C-alpha cells in the first residue's frame, strides 16, 4: 500500500540526522518538521534570514517582523539567530546547509530538477530554489509520484525548464525512496506492498533495482 502524505513526511524525517542544519521547501516539505523525534536536534534555516525557526505563533505572539520564507508568521526559539539575505545565501551557496527537502514538478534520472516554471502559465519566480539546489550538500525531493493527470514525474529527461542540472540526490514519493545513481533511478526502499513493476509502470525514468 502506498504511503499517505503524513507517512511520506515521516519517512523524509528519517533522512535527517542529529545536528543537521536543514532548509525545508514550501508545501509538503514544511510538514516534515512535525515528524522529527524530540531527542533529535535539527536546526531549520529560513532563507529570508533565520536559523532555529520555531512553530507558528499563538494569536498574541504574532509579530510582523518574524516570518518564514513562505511569508507565514512564525516564532523564534532559544537557538534562533537572524541575519541578512546575503549572509543567508552564503550559508546556502557555500555548502553549509546539510540538507534541503523540496517539492518538484519533474525529476530526471540524471538528477535534473524542474520545479519553478511551466511555460505558458504565469511564472511566479524561482525564489531561493536555484540557490538551494546548487549549494546545499544533499537535495531530497518529496513529491507525488505522478502528476494529477497521471503523467510521470520521474523522467528520462525533464521537459520543463530546469531549476538545476544534476542536483537531486534522493526522491521520496508515496511509492518509496529512490536514489539518483549510475544508470538511472535506484530503488532504496518501497512502501508496503508496492512492487517494482508498479514503480516502473508509473515512471518514465530507468528504474534500477540494485
Amino acid at each position, binding site marked *: 500500500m502506498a504511503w499517505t502524505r503524513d507517512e511520506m513526511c515521516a519517512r523524509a524525517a528519517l533522512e535527517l540526522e542529529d545536528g543537521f542544519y536543514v532548509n525545508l521547501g514550501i508545501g509538503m516539505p514544511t510538514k516534515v518538521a512535525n515528524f522529527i523525534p524530540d531527542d533529535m536536534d535539527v536546526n531549520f534555516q*529560513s532563507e*529570508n534570514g533565520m536559523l532555529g525557526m520555531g512553530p507558528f505563533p*499563538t494569536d498574541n505572539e*504574532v509579530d510582523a*517582523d518574524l516570518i518564514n520564507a513562505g511569508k507565514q508568521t512564525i516564532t523564534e526559539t532559544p537557538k534562533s539567530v537572524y541575519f*541578512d*539575505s546575503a549572509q543567508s545565501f552564503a550559508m546556502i*551557496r557555500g555548502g553549509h546547509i546539510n540538507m534541503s527537502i523540496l517539492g518538484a514538478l519533474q525529476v530526471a534520472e540524471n538528477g*535534473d530538477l524542474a520545479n519553478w516554471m511551466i511555460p505558458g502559465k504565469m511564472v511566479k519566480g524561482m525564489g*531561493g530554489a536555484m540557490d538551494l539546489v546548487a549549494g546545499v550538500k544533499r537535495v531530497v525531493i518529496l513529491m507525488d509520484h505522478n502528476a494529477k493527470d497521471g503523467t510521470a514525474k520521474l523522467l528520462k529527461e525533464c521537459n520543463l525548464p530546469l531549476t538545476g542540472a544534476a542536483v537531486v540526490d534522493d526522491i521520496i514519493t508515496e511509492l518509496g525512496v529512490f536514489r539518483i545513481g549510475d544508470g538511472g533511478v535506484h530503488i532504496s526502499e518501497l512502501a508496503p506492498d508496492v512492487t517494482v513493476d508498479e514503480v516502473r509502470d508509473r515512471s518514465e525514468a530507468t528504474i534500477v533495482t540494485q
Partner: protein
Amino acid sequence: MSKKVYSDAKSALDGLLHDGMTILAGGFGLCGIPEHMILAIRDSGVKDLTIASNNAGVDDFGLGLLLQTRQVKKMISSYVGENKTFEAQFLAGELELEFNPQGTLAERCRAGGAGIPAFYTKTGVGTLIAEGKETKDFDGQTYLMERGLTGDLAIIKAWKGDTVGNVVFRKTARNFNAPMATAGKVCVIEVEELVEPGELDPDGIHLPSIYTHRIFQGQDFEKRIEFRTVSDG
C-alpha cells in the same frame, strides 16, 4: 541635529527622484519594507522606474502601489507570486521582469556595494537564467558569471537608528535591507525609532553609518502581515 536627519519620507527623498532611475527596495514579502518611502515615491509621480526588490508587494500595499500607478517599467525580483496587478501588467507586456535567483539577487547587491563588478556562482548553471551569461570552470565545476548590482537610490527600513545613521534591524525584517543599503549611490533609511548617538550598542549595529546618507523616523508603521498563521498554543 545631524545633517543626515530628515523629518519625513517626502523631505528625505527631496531632490533624489528622477524618471528612469533604478531603486533598490529592501524587504521580503511585506516584511521590512520601507512603507513610508514607497508612499512618498507614489505621491511624487516619478515614473519609468527600475526596481530591484525580492518581491513586488501585494495589490494594495508595498511596491504594488507603484504598479497600480504604472510608475514601474521593470522589476528585478526572485518571486512575484502574490500580486495580481503585476501579473496583469506583465501579461499585457506593460512591465519588464528580470528574474534573479534570490541568492544571486542578494549577492549582486552585496557585491555591488563592495565594489565587486562580477562574481561566479553555481546557482542557475544549466538553466534559463544562464542564457547569454559567461560561464567558467573552476576545479572541475562550471560556474556562472553574475554582475554586481548598484542603484541610484536604496530605500531601506530598519528598526532603530541613531542620528549619525548607524542602524539595527529587527528579526527577519533585516533580509535584503542590509545588502541593498550598501549598493545604493544614495541610501535613505526609515526607522521606527530614532535615537541619539551612543544609545545603540556599537557592537550590535547591523549597518554602519557610512552607508546611510539620510535617515528619518516614520510615523504609524502599518507593518502588514501577508499570511497570518497561528497555532492554538
